[in-house]
């Protein structure tokens, strides 16, 4: 049972923000989508099915009030921490094993934003985990193929 706070503080605790974010995802995933609310962060849990995997991948999407990780200039709500298939080798993960789903300096249409809805973020997670599986199956660090679009790692150097 989710108890939603009524008085808005930071974005994650505002019912209007949550409802807008979740609506399509709840319609698609129903009661499998679980929400845990804490004073300074909220976490969505969902088992995601990925083609070629017999078992669902437990996914955790965490929105922080004040993230301790860098958001590279994006508002915290546009840069949640996403964990799935923990411990598996991938060329696109953070140091804490979170998925690097998008380049933070990409134009708006190449990044996920809360207005896109949680369902769109879940789709990105499924794509990403599948791309990782395919990359490993085709050789991983030895010529593995990444099916999706990639941004160069790090940030481009700006000439002085």
């Amino acid at each position, binding site marked *: 049972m989710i108890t939603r706070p009524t008085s808005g503080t930071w974005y994650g605790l505002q019912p209007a923000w949550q409802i807008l974010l979740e609506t399509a995802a709840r319609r*698609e995933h*129903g*009661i499998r989508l679980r929400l845990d609310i804490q004073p300074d962060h909220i976490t969505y849990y969902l088992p995601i*099915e*990925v*083609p*070629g*995997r*017999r078992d669902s991948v437990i996914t955790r999407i965490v929105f922080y009030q004040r993230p301790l990780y*860098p958001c*590279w200039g994006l508002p915290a709500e546009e840069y949640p921490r996403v964990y799935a298939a923990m411990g598996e080798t991938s*060329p*696109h*993960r*953070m140091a804490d094993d979170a998925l*690097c*789903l*998008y*380049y*933070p300096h*990409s134009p708006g*249409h*190449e*990044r*996920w934003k809360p207005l*896109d809805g949680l*369902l*769109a*973020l*879940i*789709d*990105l997670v*499924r*794509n*990403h985990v*599948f*791309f990782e*599986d*395919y990359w490993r*199956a085709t050789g991983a660090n030895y010529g593995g193929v*990444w*099916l*999706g*679009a*990639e*941004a*160069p*790692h*790090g940030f481009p150097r700006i000439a002085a």
Partner: protein
Amino acid sequence: MTKHKPPSLEELLSQARHRIEVTSEELKEARRRREAIANAVRKEFPGSRVYFNGSVAHGDALTPLTDIDLGIVIAEAKYTHGPGRKGPRDLMDRAADAIRSELKGDFPKLTVQVEGCTRAVLVRFGDPVHAGEKDFTADVICAIDNQDGQGLFIPKVPGWSRSDPEAHTRMIREAIENTKVAFAHVVRLLKHWNRRNGKPLVSWNIKALALDSITGPISQLAGLTTWFAYAADELDRGLTEDPAGVAEKPIKLGQGWTRTRVVTALRDAGKRLDEAVRLERDGYPLQAHEQLAKLFSDEQMLPSPDPDAVRNEAALRWKEQSLGGIGAGIGSGAMRPQVQARSWAP
């Protein structure tokens, strides 16, 4: 070298169904025991008629077969027992004694229980018909004819309730004939889905819903999709009434299930099946197969396809659907527009 053609969903369902079907050995032994019980109660209650119901009588038994159902409509109790007269307990005790004395020689570990049984005399053979199973049981109903209406009075100790098990068996047999056996095939698959998914429904509810939705010859795949859609809509409206129109109360759901949860489970299953059908139609047989395997969630009954082959087919699908540099979605997200993100790392 010719490329191996993956099996169709219909072929996979047929193979899976054969794996869960009761074996002829199980059936033969179950019928032998059922007949032994029938003879015992016929001898105790001369002039009475015996009826068979349950999965063996309905032609949809699964392996391992663990029980049989039968009843006796007791002629001599017609004017002495029933609502407002005597309860069923003494008839059940006599039936139990008769079964015990007639069958004990063949089944030394036999136990027959009446105490604590509301509906039927419970016979435990102490000897399974399927190796590896704990036991084989029989439920024996001591019924009387309803002289004022359709059907029978069956025990609901200490009293009676109305039911029409003979009509049920007749209706099921007619459905099997009218559908050229499709009814039994689809029901068998549904019963297995039910037991692999927490038993949201009792078997009789599955069949009662099938009586209204599987009415003519139909493929197993179409039968399943039809049934899931129909069952979800019907249970969304309310519990299923007795198809014979006799029982006072609708059919109960599986233990611990609410109607909302059952409807959700049925809709989820129907959605998965629809996705499998769409994938097969679009030329992705391995992903279709994967969806079907996940529906039943039983590697013995319907093994999953090779994960590497599924992955390769999903990659091919992604490439085919990613046109003009716009990336498509994977799996259940394939039909939705995607955020065109570029994977990255700091």
